[in-house]
């Protein structure tokens, strides 16, 4: 109604148009503004809620110890210092741990996604007997807590053997506890961290590619493997990037599998959990202060360490935010 009126007399002002629509326009505009204001408040509040811990950690990590107890200092440090970072880096062995974590996360993520892509493709594009049964197994794998099998996996790798070969040749079983090999083997068998989820997502993606594309490739004489590599894989780039980033990031921060299977490798996630103890020991043994570090200062160093662990991830997220969010939501998760 108001639109039609506006078209007839374009130079009508707002109130005239409002009068012509019998107050509808005013009501609508006011409502629209109200919704926008309320939404802005809500979103600001929730964004602040999520960002606040990080900002808080950032400000704490720059403070001197005296600032922590100064009631006048709330968020902005009085004496800005980088000493906390130096200390936290020393306790974590940051340089070495960083390189280890980078290497392990990259290689594990690559291996896991490579294998999961194969499996997801197999589930999406081929018909074979017992397919539903095996896919139910994938779903089951998502649901079973790793802790259920952790006990026996722990023993399995402690006394590792393949069909009794090692026992027969060397007289004893292999102890793979503390080496990185078990985790690579598990990753190659799709049993790593959240691998069921990756298989599920990749399968969903491949299912949506039209069958004609594949058939055309077969008719033109492409083999199964060549179809997969040169027709399907280039199409699946967005979802594979997403999954790779997830695998990388979750591996980076993972505590369970790392402490279970990679216990002897110095990883950032493991080092971070030990930082508080190390600080206490440092205070007692090196600085000879009875009772160790104070609560506030321990907290400060833990915050600094946490920041240092997530900093590379934050930088990564800034650059490839699209890879995380957009491609996953556009892939259309359907049941």
């Amino acid at each position, binding site marked *: 109604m108001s639109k039609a009126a506006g078209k007839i007399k374009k130079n009508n002002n707002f109130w005239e148009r409002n009068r012509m629509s019998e107050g509808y326009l005013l009501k609508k505009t006011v409502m629209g503004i109200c919704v926008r204001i309320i939404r802005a408040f809500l*979103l600001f509040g929730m964004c602040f809620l999520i*960002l606040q811990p990080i900002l808080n950690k950032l400000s704490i990590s720059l403070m001197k110890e005296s600032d922590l107890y100064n009631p006048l200092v709330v968020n902005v440090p009085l004496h800005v210092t980088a000493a906390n970072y130096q200390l936290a880096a020393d306790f974590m062995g940051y340089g070495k741990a960083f390189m280890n974590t980078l290497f392990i996360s990259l290689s594990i993520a690559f291996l896991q996604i490579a294998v999961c892509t194969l499996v997801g493709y197999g589930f999406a594009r081929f018909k074979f007997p017992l397919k539903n049964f095996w896919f139910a197994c994938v779903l089951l794998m998502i649901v079973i*807590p790793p802790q259920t099998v952790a006990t026996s996996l722990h023993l399995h790798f402690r006394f590792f053997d393949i069909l009794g070969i090692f026992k027969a040749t060397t007289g004893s079983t292999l102890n793979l506890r503390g080496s990185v090999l078990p985790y690579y083997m598990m990753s190659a068998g799709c049993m790593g961290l959240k691998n069921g989820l990756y298989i599920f997502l990749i399968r969903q993606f491949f299912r949506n590619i039209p069958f004609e594309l594949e058939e055309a490739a077969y008719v033109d004489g492409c083999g199964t493997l060549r179809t997969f590599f040169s027709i399907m894989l280039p199409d699946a780039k967005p979802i594979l990037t997403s999954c790779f980033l997830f695998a990388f990031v*979750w591996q980076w921060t993972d505590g369970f599998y790392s402490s279970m299977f990679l216990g002897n490798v110095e990883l950032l996630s493991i080092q971070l959990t030990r930082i508080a103890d190390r600080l206490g020991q440092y205070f007692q043994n090196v600085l000879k202060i009875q009772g160790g570090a104070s609560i506030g200062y321990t907290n400060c160093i833990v915050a600094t360490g946490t920041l240092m662990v*997530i900093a590379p991830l934050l930088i990564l997220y800034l650059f490839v935010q699209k890879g995380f969010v957009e491609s996953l939501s556009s892939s259309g998760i359907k049941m």
Partner: protein
Amino acid sequence: MKKKKKPAGLQKRKAISGYLFISPFIVGFLLFMVKPLFQSLYMSLSTVNVSTSGFQPVFNGIENYKKAFLIDPDFNRLLTEELGKMVVNTIAVLVFSFFVALILNQKFRGRAFVRAVFFLPVIISSGVILGVEYDNTLLAGLQETIQQSANSDTSITAAIENILVTSGVGSRVFETVFEVVDGIYDVAISSGIQILIFLSALQTISESMYEAADIEGCTAWESLWKITFPMISSMLLVNVVYTIVDFCMRTDSEVMEMITEQMTLYLDYGFSSAMAWIYFVIVGAAIGLCALFLSKVVYYYE
């Protein structure tokens, strides 16, 4: 295949290549899941003696299960607490992520930034970092002192809470709601994936439905429940399952910690496996019940 009698049919060849593609999963599943699963089931029914030469489980029936339910002082309490928390958390996360997804699906300035922020917790609050923040009992003590020194009774939320509780209508329900509101940070950081799933579902709803409803005189509130909700109800099921799994599998849950502790500290493999199995069966049953109930409600378009 090798004998080269005659080329196998296309169906058969495709079936074989299908199996080849998923073979890594089958091998991994049998080796690292099925075998340990049966082993841990057997261990949960026995006493495990560990020595340097190997480990010998000695069958002892349901002793470990009896110990978990009847003797151990903590397990029952932790388990029921965990399940109670699971129910509250799941509902809170679903409601939160549903409404956030609704808001994020609208067009406004800075939407890309807000989306990035809401998804940030998936990246940074995973794994060990969450544990570090909450493991810190010292920090908790410090927070308490701060809260005591700043008399928090004067805040608006406290005043509203007081009014609502003294109004006398179902104070138990209110208390649960307050707990959720106080723990809104936990809810916000654990609903990143759920928001994303709802969002992708919202984007598949065609605009013409809303237009038609609008012309017929449907208010926005009505079309929310009559169009949006049924259309994304299939994703509701996915989200419920994901939330429950995500909540129960987090490594800092108390039951999980107890299981790991029994295994690594006390080397009581039998007892620890028994507890893990009880937990797994109960969580599985909860997911099954939810799926059964929700699949009746879910509406499938097409």
